[in-house]
């Protein structure tokens, strides 16, 4: 089988699924090719944070665009991805970190994001479950969380209902320019053609960008996730720890059915060829200490499961997004460095706009792939989490 469409999307994570959905809404014919099942890798295994505070500032317009879509996701898709605007609170353990929370709150205000700074006493009053080591907090009242197992498939299947061809278990082997079109070849011997191709292949995308002379230093890591047995619903906001110490940077949320999902700290190994990522037992034990510092009551619970997934990271900890610098008609959105879930709907919407109209109202220039054009593929320094 083969096919022709206005756009071929390669990779059915939340970026590709959302882009497919929004391209369909713009009346474009789309073929989405997913090697496994949609939303199965990083998009389906992440923490489920719908968080704007703490982001790289130039990313906030995109995060805001995405947050607006999260708010009407059910109506758009006709499916519930369990988004809850519960608020997101960042806490810190050190007096010297309070300044960073304060200056971040000031900086994001010009992007329309209003944060509430909370003293230790205010924290204690409003969120009594937070541990005594927390010296201050920053609340983003309109952020929250959603179910990552449901969100990307909801976009993909909604796109399918609106006429997109969503093809699962179809692995793309090669993309090349052939006349006006791109020719996309699959492992099963199919060939698809389209004048535009969007690469949203996550941790696997570097191989495809390299085909067009745009190699990028993308590496894979696995988030270290765990979930507790269900208990009474008591923790409404997402809680994250702000710290320069990697181990301390854990985050947690409680789902309304009672389980507490958490992650953070050190990352684990991710094998992109085997398509498996693992939780290191040492990390599980490290997280125990840190998660109990953030919310001491968790020390009385047991975890019932851990999991990981395969996330693509770039050395400067921001994604690649926008048009190719080499091949007109080719677009990228990948390498979201472990913070792509919240952005997913906005990225899909912005990329659809960019492909459809040639421009997007949301600034995405900082994420252009050309920033790696001169840089060596290895040895780049990893920047601290923004």
């Amino acid at each position: 089988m083969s096919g022709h469409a206005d756009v071929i999307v390669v990779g059915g994570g939340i970026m590709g699924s959302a882009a497919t959905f929004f391209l369909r809404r713009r009346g474009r014919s789309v073929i989405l090719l997913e090697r496994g099942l949609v939303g199965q890798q990083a998009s389906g295994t992440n923490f489920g944070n719908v968080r704007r505070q703490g982001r790289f500032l130039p990313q906030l317009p995109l995060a805001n665009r995405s947050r607006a879509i999260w708010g009407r996701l059910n109506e758009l898709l006709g499916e519930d991805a369990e988004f809850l605007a519960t608020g997101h609170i960042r806490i810190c353990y050190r007096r010297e970190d309070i300044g960073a929370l304060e200056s971040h709150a000031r900086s994001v205000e010009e992007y329309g994001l209003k944060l509430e700074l909370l003293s230790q006493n205010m924290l204690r009053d409003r969120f009594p479950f937070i541990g005594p080591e927390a010296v201050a907090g920053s609340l983003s009242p309109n952020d929250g969380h959603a179910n990552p197992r449901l969100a990307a498939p909801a976009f993909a299947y909604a796109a399918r209902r609106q006429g997109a061809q969503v093809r699962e278990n179809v692995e793309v082997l090669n993309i090349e320019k052939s006349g006006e079109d791109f020719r996309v070849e699959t492992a099963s011997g199919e060939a698809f053609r389209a004048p535009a191709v969007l690469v949203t292949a996550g941790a696997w995308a570097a191989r495809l960008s390299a085909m067009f002379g745009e190699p990028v230093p993308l590496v894979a890591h696995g988030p270290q996730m765990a979930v507790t047995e269900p208990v009474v619903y008591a923790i409404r906001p997402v809680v994250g720890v702000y710290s320069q110490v990697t181990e301390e940077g854990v985050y947690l949320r409680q789902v309304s059915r009672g389980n507490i999902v958490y992650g953070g700290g050190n990352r684990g190994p991710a094998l992109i060829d085997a398509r498996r990522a693992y939780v290191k037992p040492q990390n599980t034990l490290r997280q125990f200490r840190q998660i109990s510092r953030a919310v001491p009551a968790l020390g009385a619970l047991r975890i019932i499961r851990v999991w990981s997934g395969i996330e693509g990271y770039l050395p400067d900890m921001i994604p690649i997004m926008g048009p190719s610098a080499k091949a007109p008609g080719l677009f990228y959105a990948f390498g979201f460095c472990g913070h792509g879930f919240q952005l997913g709907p906005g990225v899909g919407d912005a990329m659809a706009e960019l492909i459809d109209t040639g421009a997007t109202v949301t600034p995405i220039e900082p994420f252009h792939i050309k920033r790696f054009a001169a840089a060596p593929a290895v040895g780049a320094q990893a920047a601290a989490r923004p």
Partner: protein
Amino acid sequence: MAEPHVIVVGAGPAGVRAAETLVAAGLRPMVIDEDACGGGQIYRRQPANFARPAEAIYASEAGKASAVHATLDRLAGRIDYLSNTLAWNIDDRLLYVVNGMAAAELPFDALIVAAGATDRVMPVPGWTLPGVFTLGAAQIALKSQACAIGREVAFLGTGPLLYLVAHQYATAGGNVAAVLDTSAKADRVAALPMLAARPALLARGLSYLRDLRRRGVPVLDGVVPAAIAGSQEAGVQCLTVRHRGRAVAIACDAVAMGHHLRPETQLADLARCDFRFDPPTRQWLPVVDRDCRTSVKRIYLAGDGVRIAGADAAEIQGRLAACAALQDLGRAAPDIGAAALRLRLARMDWFRRGLARAFPWPWRLAASLPDNAVVCRCERITAGELRAAVRANGAPEVNRAKAFSRVGMGRCQGRYCGHAAAEIVADAAGAPIESVGRLRGQAPVKPLPIAAKGAGLP
């Protein structure tokens, strides 16, 4: 040269024989036992203040049980025995264990996992009512605490354990309301040539059946379970099945159910051992060679944790696994007469396949399970919810069905519901069972306290 460090997980017949063989080779293995005092499930020991003679607990197997116990006791001081300890994860050559809140990271050069088995369960409407137990749990109550699970106990399911536990209850003075077997007489007739590989065992099984009948216990085969009736407050009140086209209602206040056994393979999964689909039993099993080596170097699997071949086979496999480990570590292995043991094991494996044929997993029942029947107890997921997840978005694989429906996501991680869930997914997708895969095992093997910590650990 430093002594190689070998860890044995499990202190049932396989684990104890493995440890004994390692000690005979001059090693000091570590034995990890989830239980308090060894013996495993089959030869579970009664608490210290109980004084029943071995014959009262293990009947015809008392000699073997006592021998395994005596060996474990004799090994004291020559092994490091960690009781009440859960092995919850493996990372390369490190085993992670927890005892209460005390966690430890144990390096090993070889790991022999003899994790045993649990009941294989096909749900029936009402199986989550108070008073419904697995056959294994019903037997533990009797073996360990000399308790019955109810005053009038109905036994439902299939497999040798169905008749054994019912017989044990009857012998111990319990009231057996009925024994209801989902397998048909024709299954057992067809299996006879294979079961004849162990004539003594076959004769013993038949004697249980005769004895139950002599006591006037209704024993029906070829039944189709309909429902367990009762309420959360009153518990079980009645079990109904269909037998030869008519409904049969059994008044009872407890039900013991199970459909033969399934190996506890989580550690093998976490060690990343290869699994293969086993068509006769319709499940995925770890791949092992004839000496219990897995696909992962220095990881060995023995006993019912690999194949349900019973306690005698487990003792042999424990010895073979230990010898294989010694050999792979470059150590001289004691002469255990491996060639003869392998021959005996082959005969036992023939019998194992006979049991699977005689008491088949009643997979067809999954398709007829009503939509409102609970499949996953931990997450309370019904057959209907699981079918909807498969049909709505095309989840042709169990991990996908898990992601959409939460089936198998709870405390037991699908150890109890996984096989039935796979059958429901296959049926709803119209796909062969082997194509829907198996639930990926994740740590911890069982729930792990967040308060766990240990010296030298993060």
